[in-house]
Structures are given as structure tokens and as C-alpha cells.
């Protein structure tokens, strides 16, 4: 492969390529896909044909990575689907504000204060408890198609 093949354009600007076209047949379980404009994680793929001697199509069952809803889509295997650009970044959790925002420390030393806490009770409890016990927490923030949310917690303090 030539050098050009290795060169990926850095798409760091917000809103630049939020999705990428990819042949439906190459999307596997645990990959990502856009269905009805929502970024989703694929949990099931099955193939069938359009008529006995027709072409293959893929049936995707996927879960919206932000709101947890189940979505489905059927696409001819040779057609392109949109795959969302899902970015995951780690931040150290500095503070949780009264009005439901978190204060995060970025790699270059700045703070990021515009991320809301999840509204779900279960998730909220896990974060608040962890933070409340004075642990050193690192949160992973997942960003895709203009939305962002905390998707993982890690205790990095001494045991």
C-alpha cells in the first residue's frame, strides 16, 4: 500500500465528519451504525436474501448508545451504511456541581464544565457515591454526532 493509503485526515473540528460510509456487509456485531439518525451499537446481525435468487441483505439490531433504545434496520449488504464516529476520552473528575454538571480536568490542564450528569438514578448514584467517598475517579466521556455522555468510571486511587 502506498503512503496515501495511510494518511487519514485529522477530523478534529467539531461537526466535520460525524459519520463514515461503510459497506453494510462489513459491519459486524459490536460495531457501530447510524439508524434513523441515531448512533447505535450493533448487537445482532443476520443475513437473508431478497427473494430466493436475489441479493443478500443485512438485518441489524442495534442499541442507541445514548438513550438505550433498540433500533432495527434492513440494508442490502452491498450498500453503504453510515457508521458514527464515536470518540471516547478520559477525564479526571474534579467536582460535581449542585445543578447537575460535572467539572472535568482535560489532558492539557483545562477544565471542561459543560457536561451534564446523567439523569438516570442508577447511573447518578454510581457516580455520586464514587465521588463522594473521595476516590480519585476517571470518567470516560463518549461523544458521537453532537451528543456526549459519561460511559465509564474508573477508580485510579490507591487501594
Amino acid at each position: 500500500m502506498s503512503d496515501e493509503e495511510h494518511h487519514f485526515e485529522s477530523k478534529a473540528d467539531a461537526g466535520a465528519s460525524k459519520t463514515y460510509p461503510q459497506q453494510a456487509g462489513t459491519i459486524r456485531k459490536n460495531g457501530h451504525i447510524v439508524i434513523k439518525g441515531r448512533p447505535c451499537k450493533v448487537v445482532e446481525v443476520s443475513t437473508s436474501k431478497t427473494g430466493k435468487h436475489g441479493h443478500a441483505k443485512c438485518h441489524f439490531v442495534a442499541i442507541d448508545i445514548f438513550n438505550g433504545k433498540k433500533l432495527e434496520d434492513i440494508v442490502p449488504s452491498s450498500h453503504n451504511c453510515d457508521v458514527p464516529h464515536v470518540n471516547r476520552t478520559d477525564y479526571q473528575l474534579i467536582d460535581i456541581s449542585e445543578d447537575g454538571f460535572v467539572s472535568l480536568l482535560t489532558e492539557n490542564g483545562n477544565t471542561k464544565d459543560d457536561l451534564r450528569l446523567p439523569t438516570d438514578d442508577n447511573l447518578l448514584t454510581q457516580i455520586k457515591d464514587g465521588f463522594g467517598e473521595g476516590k480519585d475517579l476517571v470518567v470516560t466521556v463518549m461523544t458521537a454526532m453532537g451528543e456526549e455522555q459519561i460511559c465509564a468510571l474508573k477508580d485510579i486511587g490507591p487501594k
Partner: protein
Amino acid sequence: MAQEPTSSEQICGAAAWIIREGMKITAHSALCVFKRQPRGENEWFMNRPVSKTHGAAAWIIVELYNGQMQEHHLLQMLSGIIQWINPPDAVSTAIECGKSESEMLDGCRALLSIATITTPMMFDKLLKSLSPFGTLSLLSTLTCEVVKARVANTTEEETWSYVARDILLDTWTALLVPTVSGRNDALPPEGIHAAAIVFNMIVECELKAASASVFDDEDNSDYQASISAMDQRLSSYALIARAAIDVTVPLLTRLFSERLALLHQGRGTTNPTGTLEELYSLLLITGHVLADEGEGETPLIPEALQAHFVDIVEAEKHPVVVLSCSIIRFAEQSIDPEMRASIFSPRLMEAVIWFLARWSNTYLMPFESRRGNNCISGPDHESQHRSQLSRKALIGFCGEHNQGKLVLDIIVRISMTTLISYPGEKDLQALTCYQLLTVLVRRRNLCVHLVTLDSWRNLANAFANERSLFSLTAPHQRSLAETLARSAIGMGNTEAANQHVRDLVGHMTAYLVDISSKDDLTTVAQQPDAILSVSCLLERLRGAARASQPRTWKAIYEMGFSVMNPLLTLLEIYKHESAVVYLILKFVVNWVDGQISFLEAKDTAVVVNFCMRLLQLYSSHNIGKISLSLSSRLLNEAKTEKYKDLRALLQLLTNLCSKDLVDFSSDSCEAENTDIAQVIYLGLHIVMPLISVDLLKYPKLRHDYFALLSHMFEVYPEKVAQLNAEAFAHLLGTLDYGIHHQASWQVASKDMLHAAKIADTEVVNMCLRALNALASYHYKERGAGKEGLGSHAAGLKDLNGNLQEGVLSRFLKSLLQLLLFEDYSTELVSSAADALLPLILCEQGLYQAIFLNYCSELDKLI
């Protein structure tokens, strides 16, 4: 007192009477009744208005069950059920008009029972005492009726004809399946004719069903399920066809060419779907007739095909050759784009590829010396000689020195077509990758020719240097990489073979080295196109790693070595992308597995060091990490991903273990050798915190973990002693868990529950063996005046100054608790006893104390 009967007819008359009286038992059951009822205890007989003679007669059947008796008896049985199945057309019509099918089905079952204990000759002869035609003819006519009725049934339900067909096909199979020598398997001439008629009808009806099915709703069942579900039926068809090969092979050839002509005539005007489906059926049937599956072995050309056509000594005139060639020539047309578009639908192509895979495994460049030249002498010399020539013609027509290479080339080009010109057709491409191409590299003599073909070189080149094959789904790329790497065994020498592999994998390693050294990697890595490329390349590496062989291991070692650091970089970058992480881990597992036995000491140290860094890195990313999601489904998926990763890590440690067991390296210097045991324990120590009790509920993970643990304890008990207190406590804690824990199973069926419990027992067994090893080690060491498990066994003071009991006393109590008070399978008694003995020997005082305690408790109760 019963009188002895005067003739055998009376004996059998008793049997026939039972059946004729219609006792609502099948003929087969009647036979069993006779076998079961001993003399004198036959109340049932005695109470019927039948003389006691018949009762005794029944007993005599059992006692005097010799050949002639058997024949008589079977004849009587047959005559008892004959009206239920004869004449077949009348019976079929009656059932269609509403009569119950139960008698007819019982009659079929009776035929099946008879067929299982008779030779074809015997079977056929039976009916001849009652009618002008033999039993095989009746079976043939009956089968034809049933098959016709089945096609006529347009409902979805399984009716009587479905059941009857299966029973009758089983009957044919019982008669025709080649048995161990000693039984005469030959058919009488009318039998051969009967088989030909049946096969003709079967194929006619299959074709009718095929063309009718195109109007069905979408084919929901996936391709693999449909062929394997049909496999038993198709195997029966093949046996029937091979019984009348003179007729059936030309029949298939004719039907095939008729359909081809239809297709060509109708091109562009008529809808070909019906004919395509007929061709699909024909290919499946022909594939089964011409070749066998040959599980794990290279299947021979079926004997029936070799032995007949004795007068045909020129290959191109041999009917099997004619049929094979016409199909291959047809398949070749798929390479032409226009033909492909109008005729070769994905489904038809699937049948073509399946056929080529099955056919090639038998006919393509077979080992010509397989059939030894039997020494022939005597008056049959001439005909036997012609027979030998005929066999040779068949075996050799696609041999290395004839058309073999040409056909190989055609097959490779057809394969390439399916991979490039059928975008998105995953099932088709799966067949090509997993079934067809793997056959081509299975044998060395094929590989030798493969690597000289331009078409194969084109495929390898497209794989290594072009983008076209990147659109295949990643697992197929893995398989392709493995196949291409495997073909290196066809190269002339080791250096050429290694170079072949290097040329193949060069692009993979170059890409990964390059991408991992990019400055802006963090930004670009999470873009979908980057993830796709990285995933494809990792899968390709995996495939190449799996093809490691003694000849090419060096090139594959270099491949892995060159990407060690890049992989660690990628593991860091992609720590949140579980799919990529898993691929990295699996690659390393596969690579180590193929390499470890060959590595010299220095390289072993390098590999081991790399693996430990990998484990450390993975652990640091994942320890204490909790996924958060609104979706319980996604949380479950995350858990499954963790579990799969851990299994991979345990596999890696297990593969490293094997270095101590299988070592092909030439080093003799012990001092440089890596202490594998130490490495494994370190690895376990790293991995352990990631394995929660919750995850240990996954049966496979449990099994892998305890298999490794018990292996380590059994082989390296001295290392256990050297572990620090924390690590030791942790490992032994899991051992205790493994012995006592009976998972609560939520499984779908009783069979699965049973399987789960067996798996559970196996795990406990392994833990008991580990315990045995540990305790035995300590006992023997102490006996020799040494430390053994040292402070672990003696007990130590913990941080608060309290004395923690030693591990052996703890386990003695724990094991006694299990054996006396808990539920366990009897399968465990032996290994539990083995473990108990050394524990008792080590802790005699404690053992006595425990039992004195039990006794005094019992005394209190009494």
C-alpha cells in the same frame, strides 16, 4: 403341560395370528413381545382363546432363532403387514381420501426393521414367496408413491408423506450402506432396476419441488442450515443412486444439460428463477452422489463409482468424468460478467462453490498410488485388468499429470470471482473461504501446483497490495490470510516458503508500524475508517499466525516481532474500543501458540516479556472500570466482552505454559532459559483482579481458569510456595470457590442443564486435583526435611497480630464439609479421596480433633 408343536409353520402361525388379530402393536413390537415372554409365564397368551401350544410355540421361536427360522418368521411378518402397504397407489389414494395413515406407517417401519437385519438379496427374496415381484420392487414403488404424495402436498404441515419418506429412505440406507466385509451387499438385478426407478422419481420430485418453491415467501433459513438439514436425506439419495450407477449418472448429466439449455434459450426473455432453483437442487444431489464428506480424512472416490463402467477405459467417455466436466465447464462461465449477471445468482453460486469444494476434495489430484495394484491371476484376469484400467482412468483424469492443473486454475479463478464480484454476499464468500479454498491448501501436492499458477499469484497479490479484498468481512480476510500463508508448503524449499509468507504479510506489518508512529494518532484512531482498516489488518495477521508450520515459523515470528511495540501502542490508543482490543489479544494468542515451541531461549524471553507488558497494560486499563449505560443489553454486552478478553488472556498464559512441555529449540544452556512457571504465576497475578466472582460464572471462563490453575499447581507446586502471602491467599481463595461453588443455572433445556452440571463437576475435579498436588508436595517435602509450603501451611500472623490458620488445615475442614454435608456428584469421590489423603497426613492432629468432635456431637444426639 404344553405340547411341542409339530411343524415350524405352526410356530410362525402363532406370530402371524398375533399380528393379524390387529393387537394395535406394530409388527416390530410383536417381535419384541415374542422375545420377551418366557415359557410358562405367558398369562396374556394363556387367557386368549388360543391353545397353550401357541404359547410354547412363541418360546420355541426365541430358542430356535436360526437363519431359516428367521427367514420364515420375517416372511410371516411381511405377509401380516403387506395389505397395509400394497398396492402402494391404492394405499396412498385411500390415505389422501381420509383413511388413517397409521397402518401404512407401521408397515413402512416393519420394512425398515426387516432391512436392518437382512442383506439386500435376502430382503428381496422374502416377498417372492407371496408375489411375482421381490420386496425391493415393492419398496421402490412404495417410495415413489410417497415421494409423489409429498410433492403434491402444498401445505406447510408435515403430513404422513413426510414421515413415510424418511422411514423409507432409512430403509434404503439400511440396505445399501456399505458394511464391513463378510456380508454380501450385492443387489439382485431387479433390485438395481428398482433403485434406478426410485432415484429417477426422487430427482423428478425434487426438481418439481424446487421450481415450485420459488414462489415461497423469503427464504428465512440461512444457507448452512438448509444444506446440513438436508444432508441426511441427500446421503440416502446418493446411496440409492450409487446402487444403480449405470443409469443414474447419465440421468443426472442429461437433466443438467437440459436445464442449461433452458437457461441459455430463455436468457433475457423468461424469468430463470425456477430453473436456477432446479440447478441448485441438482448440484446438491450430484455433489452427494459423486463424492463423500470424508470428515477429517481425504475421501476416496466412492467404490461404486470406481467399480462400475468396467468397459470404459478412456477417461473422457467415463460417465462420472462427463458429468463432472459438464458441471465444471458450467461453473467456469461465472467468470464472464454477462453470464454472471443473467444466470449466476448468489444462491446458485453458493451451490456451485459447495459442489466444487466437495468434488475437489475427492477428485482433484488424488494420490494416485492409493489404490494398490492388486495382483491378479486366474481366468478373470482379462476383465479384472479392464476394471483396473477403468479405475485408473477415473482416478487419474484430474490428476497432476492430466487435467488437474487446468481444473485447479479454473477453481481458483471462480473463487476470486466470488470474492470480488459479489459484493456483500457473505454466505457465498464464507463458502469460498472456509470450504473451497481450505480444501485447495489441505494437501501438499495441491499446494505445489497452486503456487505456480498465475491465478493464485493474482489472488495473493490482490490480497497484499490492493484494496479490493478489504471489502470482505473481516473474518473472511482472516481465513484468506491463513489459506494464502498455508500454501507456502508448496514452495520448493524453506527459504522460498518463508519469503512467500513475508511477501504476504509485509503490507500488514508496514501499515501497523506506520500508523502507530503517527503523531496525531489519538485523533485519527477513533475515526471509523481507521478502526475498519486496523481491524482488517489485525484479522489478517491472526490468519497468518494460525498458518504457522515448521517450515514457515521463522517468517511468522519476524512478523509478530516487528509489530510488538506497535501493538502495545494500539492497545493503549484503542483501550475503549473493545472490538479492537479483542483482536489484538487474539492475535497474540494465536501467534504465541504457533511460535512458542520453536523459539530459542533468547527469543522466548522477548516473547514472554512482551506478553507480560501486554497483560500489564490491559489490566491497567480495565481494573476497577465500570461501564455505565442506560441499556441493560449494552451492559451485558460489555460484560461479555470482558469475559471474552479474559478467556483470551488465560489462553495466552496456557499457551506460554506449553513451552515447558513441547520445546523444539536447540538451546542446551539452561541458565538462559526463561522460568516459565514464574512467568505464568506473574501473569495470573496480573489477571486475577480482573476475574470477579460474577465472571467466574461463565462456564468456559471457569473451565479455562481452573484448568490453568490446576495445571500450575500440579506441575509447579514449588512455585506456589514462593508466592507472597497476598497472591497466595488470592489463588487459594479461588480454589476454595471452585470446589464449593455450584452455579445456579438458568438454561434453556434439560440437556443444557445436564451439560452444565457435567462441566461443573469437571471444574471441581480439577480443583481437587490441584489440592491433591499441593498437599502431596508439602507432605513429601516435609518428609525429606524441607520447607514445603512453609509459612503458608504453618499459618502466619496477620496485620492485627491474629494467627491465620494454615492453608492445609483450612482445606481439610473445607473438604470434609463438602464430603459430609454438601451435595456432590459421585464422579468426584475418587479425586476427593485422592485429595483428602495427603491433607489428613499433613494435618493429622486436626483430623483427629474434627472426628472426635463429630463423635461427641453424635453421642449427644443419641
